[in-house]
């Protein structure tokens, strides 16, 4: 590769030229920034300006460019130079649009712009163009775990797109729960009648697909590696092991039904009380004829009790979503075989969203009775059951005698080991607890993927054991790159949703394998070619990076050094922020690229009344909010110097201490919301930053600084008004506090 040649381009459009001394900026870039080439342009983002830069790259062999113009979020189409390293000095949204109008502010405005140019030049000199991981791997096949409707669909849809699939099923045949159903809830207009499940047809198509290899009676004994190079050991029931390698994984391990014996008040355990699955078995046995109980008696009256052990803190707190439609379907089994059968559904809220409303109507049309009420007790009565319930419409206690009672129980995800529990016993086991070791091996026995990852054998769960995404916009986010969940293991759902879900999960798995093969990051920094570089010789084996990585990307090697699996890495930089000895960096984002910016600015002396505040702003939410403050021309203090960071989790405390040592008066960190409803795209960036900052209080005191000089703030992307207020308030607070005693020592 050619020698580094730097160039700075300073735009005077969009009012920059009117409000700033552009030649002075150019001089700074040249003198202080040491840019080899400095050019000014009146309208840098137009075709001519862009061509000028292109020509320099081509003819002048420029390798590093600094664009001093608008925000890095703006004009990305124009300023797209994939072959060179690039930094952006945000003079528009970051300076002229947010600094108060008027000549009395000219000086501070110019100082701000000067500093941003200095920072961008400093960053540029430390940055490299990411080259991608040279050790990338090429496997693009998938493993799908679970041969139910979700798993079969994921396998089939991926194979139809040309990807080889290994389908692993614990049972002796494909089909899962769907295979045990008599009919399924309709998924096509007119949404009026139960439909064939199609499970056996799909099983046949999967079984005969040239790109799908089915392993029955098989479980996953071990999963190691990373996207593009997962190494799997498959255990057959016979005891033999098969080793396979795949590019990505879909986990579609479904659910178990809630144990009705835990619901004795609703008759769980009584002879003539069954759950949905039990009723399906009876319906299958009747084969379309009159449905008979286990004792052979034809059922003439049946009551369905909805939300049995669901929406109930004592049992399952959630709603399984499908049960209202399932009970409607099963009531139709009776009505279709014999319209004279009395069918009553006792419900609280009848939940049949979308076209399910038509299915509900159809059942009412068939004479299924729906009673809004709450069952209090189901008991044996004669040769049947008596259901006692409160009729909420009639506001009265009521009793129904029925031959059979069906409890609509919920779905319990088959998601394997709870990582939090695993973490706990692991720590205790490491401490020598024999009991913990025993618990750990018990936990291991229920693992599904048996990941060899340091952070545990299965993928982290979101809530109630469901391995769901935490993000509204990104339903397939998982904390284990290249492994996607689909179907009821992800969240309670019906067949229609599960098949849709499995199709989506198959795409994500394909995408993960494709990305890994090019050395690119997966969502949310999709396409990022940078990857963490470690200087192992400096590593103290503190394990913070392995513990704090939100994606379990870092294992340990035999010598207990961190072992980075780049294809699992999502490039958030949490490890970099965690590292006390600063040995982890990315080509274009490192302790140095940020640190050099911090040090590049000019700090006025303590008598100038010009405090300097470093703002480290999360690039996902806080930085766009600051940008939009500019777009809305909301004014904030010109004393701040803002640096976008990939995530607050990537903030290394050295930046803070460096800043304070250099004479900054304060540091603001702006990150996403933390807590249960966290909005951090890297799970716990804000939380980690808060935690780390709480630990540097002593350092500050040692430096003779007030702890308030470092503060963390939650900023949402819509907070453009609020963020300006936060800045102004903080600046006022620091002015009140007086200049940093460190000034002048830096």
């Amino acid at each position, binding site marked *: 590769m050619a020698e580094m040649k730097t160039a700075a381009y300073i735009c005077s459009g969009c009012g920059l030229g009117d409000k700033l001394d552009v030649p002075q900026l150019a001089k700074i870039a040249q003198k202080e920034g040491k840019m080899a080439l400095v050019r000014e342009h009146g309208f840098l983002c137009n075709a001519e300006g862009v061509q000028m830069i292109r020509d320099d790259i081509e003819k002048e062999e420029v390798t590093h460019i600094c664009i001093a113009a608008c925000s890095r979020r703006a004009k990305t189409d124009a300023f797209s130079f994939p072959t060179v390293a690039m930094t952006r000095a945000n003079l528009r949204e970051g300076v002229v649009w947010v600094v108060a109008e008027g000549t009395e502010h000219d000086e501070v405005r110019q100082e701000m712009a000067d500093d941003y140019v200095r920072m961008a030049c400093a960053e540029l000199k430390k940055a490299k163009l990411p080259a991608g991981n040279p050790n990338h791997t090429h496997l693009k096949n998938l493993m799908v775990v679970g041969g139910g409707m979700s798993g079969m669909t994921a396998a089939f849809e991926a194979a139809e797109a040309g990807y080889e699939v290994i389908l692993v099923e614990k049972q002796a045949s494909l089909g899962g729960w769907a295979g045990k159903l008599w009919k399924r809830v309709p998924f096509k207009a007119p949404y009026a009648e139960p439909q064939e499940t199609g499970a056996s047809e799909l099983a046949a198509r999967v079984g005969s697909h040239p790109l799908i290899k089915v392993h029955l009676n098989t479980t996953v004994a071990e999963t190691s590696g990373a996207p593009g190079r997962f190494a799997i050991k498959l255990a057959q029931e016979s005891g033999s092991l098969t080793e396979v390698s795949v590019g990505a994984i879909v986990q579609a391990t479904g659910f178990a039904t809630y144990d009705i014996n835990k619901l004795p008040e609703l008759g769980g355990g009584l002879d003539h009380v069954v759950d949905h699955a039990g009723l399906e078995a009876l319906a299958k046995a009747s084969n379309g004829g009159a449905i008979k109980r286990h004792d052979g008696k034809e059922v003439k009256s049946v009551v369905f009790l909805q939300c049995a052990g669901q929406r109930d803190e004592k049992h399952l707190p959630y709603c399984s979503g499908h049960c209202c439609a399932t009970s409607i379907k099963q009531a139709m089994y009776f009505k279709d075989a014999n319209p004279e059968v009395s069918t009553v559904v006792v419900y609280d809220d009848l939940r049949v969203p979308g076209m399910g409303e038509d299915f509900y*109507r159809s059942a009412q049309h068939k*004479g299924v*009775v*729906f*009673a809004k009420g709450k069952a209090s007790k189901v008991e044996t009565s004669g040769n049947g059951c008596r259901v006692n319930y409160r009729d909420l*419409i009639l506001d009265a206690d009521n009793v129904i005698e029925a031959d059979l009672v069906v409890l609509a129980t919920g779905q319990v995800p088959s998601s394997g080991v709870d990582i939090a529990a695993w973490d706990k016993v692991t720590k205790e086991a490491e401490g020598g607890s024999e009991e913990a070791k025993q618990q750990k091996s018990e936990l291991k026995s229920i693992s599904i993927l048996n990941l060899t990852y340091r952070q545990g054998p299965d993928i982290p769960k979101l809530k109630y054991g469901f391995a769901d995404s935490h993000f509204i916009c990104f339903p397939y986010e998982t904390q284990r790159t290249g492994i996607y969940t689909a179907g009821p293991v992800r969240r309670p759902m019906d067949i229609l949703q599960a098949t849709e879900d499995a199709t989506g999960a198959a795409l994500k798995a394909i995408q993960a394998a494709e990305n890994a093969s090019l050395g690119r990051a997966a969502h949310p920094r999709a396409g990022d070619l940078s990857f963490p570089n470690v200087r192992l010789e400096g590593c103290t084996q503190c394990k913070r990076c392995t513990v704090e990585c939100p994606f379990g990307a870092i294992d340990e090697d035999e010598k207990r050094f961190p072992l980075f699996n780049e294809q699992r890495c999502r490039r958030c930089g949490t490890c970099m922020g965690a590292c006390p000895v600063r040995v982890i960096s990315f080509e274009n984002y490192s302790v140095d690229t940020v640190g050099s910016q911090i040090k590049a600015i000019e700090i006025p002396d303590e008598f100038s009344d010009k405090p300097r505040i470093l703002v480290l702003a999360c690039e996902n939410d806080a930085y766009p909010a600051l940008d939009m403050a500019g777009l809305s021309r909301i004014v904030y203090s010109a004393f701040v110097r803002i640096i976008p960071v990939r995530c607050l989790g990537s903030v290394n405390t050295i930046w803070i201490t460096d800043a304070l040592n250099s004479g900054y008066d304060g540091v603001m960190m702006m990150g996403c919301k933390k807590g249960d409803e966290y909005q951090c795209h890297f799970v716990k960036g804000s939380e980690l930053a808060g935690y780390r900052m709480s630990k540097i209080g002593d350092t500050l005191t040692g430096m003779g600084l007030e702890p308030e000089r470092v503060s963390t703030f939650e900023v949402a992307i819509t907070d453009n008004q609020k963020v300006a207020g936060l800045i102004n308030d903080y600046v006022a607070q620091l002015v009140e506090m007086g200049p940093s005693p460190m000034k002048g020592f830096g």
Partner: protein
Amino acid sequence: MSELNQKAVALYGNNFLKEVTERVEDGEWVSMCMQCGVCAGSCPLGPHWEHSPQKIFRMIMAGKRDEVLTSDSMWMCTSCYSCIVRCPRKLPITHIMHGLAHYANRLDVAPKGQPTRELARVFWNNLIKTGRVNELKFSLAVYFKDGFSQGIKNLLSMQVIALGLMKAKRLNPMEIIGGHKCKDVGGIQKMLAKAQEIEARRQIS
């Protein structure tokens, strides 16, 4: 208990929903109710009755036969059709209410002396006599339905109104001795008798 009522009970047992579905005009719609209550809130006489339409429907489904048939709620329908046009399930509620009232009346379990029930009876008897309604005879019959002395009282209380109408030539005292009628009264009466015969054939036998 009327003979018809006995027969109905014998035939349907406690399956009142089925009885309503098969025997009451538009009764097959009852099971379509989803208990939203828009009918209950829309009825102009709602504040005065005990059971709203939606509640009546739930009672039917819960097998509350006696409570439904003896309810006076259906008799307070003014036929304003507010419930029908607002019902999200398009239940012909007005007609179902009429059907239930008619059925209760036919089984003779509807509340005795319910004023609208009486009014309806008088009205019908009036109309089938000549094929057209004779408003004077109809009014008098309404006022005298509870006996002579009550009738005089009723009449006196309405005197101002009646005089006003007479003055405006909108109540004709001469109607008492004749009045409007259809020419083919005979045909109409035969036709109605036939209708009854057909319905009897289709109903409980």
